């Protein structure tokens, strides 16, 4: 139980570090740590499959992609554009307001402070696989197509344009 609060604290800390660090490379590294703490949260929820996927996809694929792009573009602390302090303060205030509003909403709704009622084993690969390949087979296939299209789109976008030979 205390493990949850500890991991939550770590996650919040590194999330804050992510957005406030000036150096973008450091930001990415802090984000990786944040995602790792989230993976721990998944394990605590006994959602083993998600934990693994989160680990592989987010920490592995996505974050590496970010890092890769950062390095490709050769961004570092010196070139990092920063907003004025006023805008920063305003942004923080807006974020706090949003949080306050969400908390307020939670208080107004007053959900029953639930504890686990159902089967805690649902997060296992076996169970999820059953659901995924029965009930959600079609969305699963469609998401495969989505990934394919995203891949094609990414390649097309990032490809260097061949300059057209202008005809006289």
């Amino acid at each position, binding site marked *: *139980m205390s*493990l*949850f*609060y500890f991991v*939550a604290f770590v996650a*919040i800390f590194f999330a804050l570090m*992510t*957005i406030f660090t000036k150096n*973008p490379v450091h930001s990415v590294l802090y*984000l990786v740590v944040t*995602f790792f703490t*989230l993976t721990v*949260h*998944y394990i*605590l*929820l*006994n*959602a083993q499959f*998600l934990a693994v*996927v*989160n680990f592989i*996809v987010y920490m592995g694929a*996505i974050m590496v992609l*970010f890092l890769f*792009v*950062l390095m490709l*573009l050769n*961004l570092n602390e010196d070139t990092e*554009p920063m907003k004025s302090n006023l*805008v920063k303060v305003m*942004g923080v205030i807006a*974020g*706090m307001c949003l*949080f306050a509003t969400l*908390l307020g909403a*939670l208080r107004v709704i007053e*959900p029953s*402070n*639930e*504890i*686990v*009622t*159902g*089967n*805690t084993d*649902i*997060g296992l690969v076996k169970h*999820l696989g059953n*659901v*995924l390949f029965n*009930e*959600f087979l079609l969305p699963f296939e469609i*998401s495969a197509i*989505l*990934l394919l299209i995203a891949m094609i*789109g*990414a390649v*097309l*976008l*990032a490809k260097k344009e061949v300059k057209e030979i202008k005809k006289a």
Partner: protein
Amino acid sequence: MENIVTQIQGVPLNHYIIFCSIIFAIGVTGVLIRRNVIIIMMSIELMLNAVNLLLAAFSAYRGDPTGQVFVFFIMALAAAEVAVGLAIIIMVYRNTKSVDIESLSKLRW
């Protein structure tokens, strides 16, 4: 296994909601205070993950696997989004030699 069940049962659902709200608000703040497009995208990933975790928490508490399946789909979508988004950023950088969101001020009348 017993250990894990007690772990979960020890934490009220409300705390998950508050925790995820904090992460989400941090993501929003990140979007607002940074100018680097890549950092902004990372903040968006942060928000997505906050929502993912909340979905998984609800799923576990309700004993309904659908929520976790949704998280899986969101991850697939996030992967696609990042791939395309980063490609766009590269294109922008190639054209403006900058990843500053302020340089993209053409979205006007």
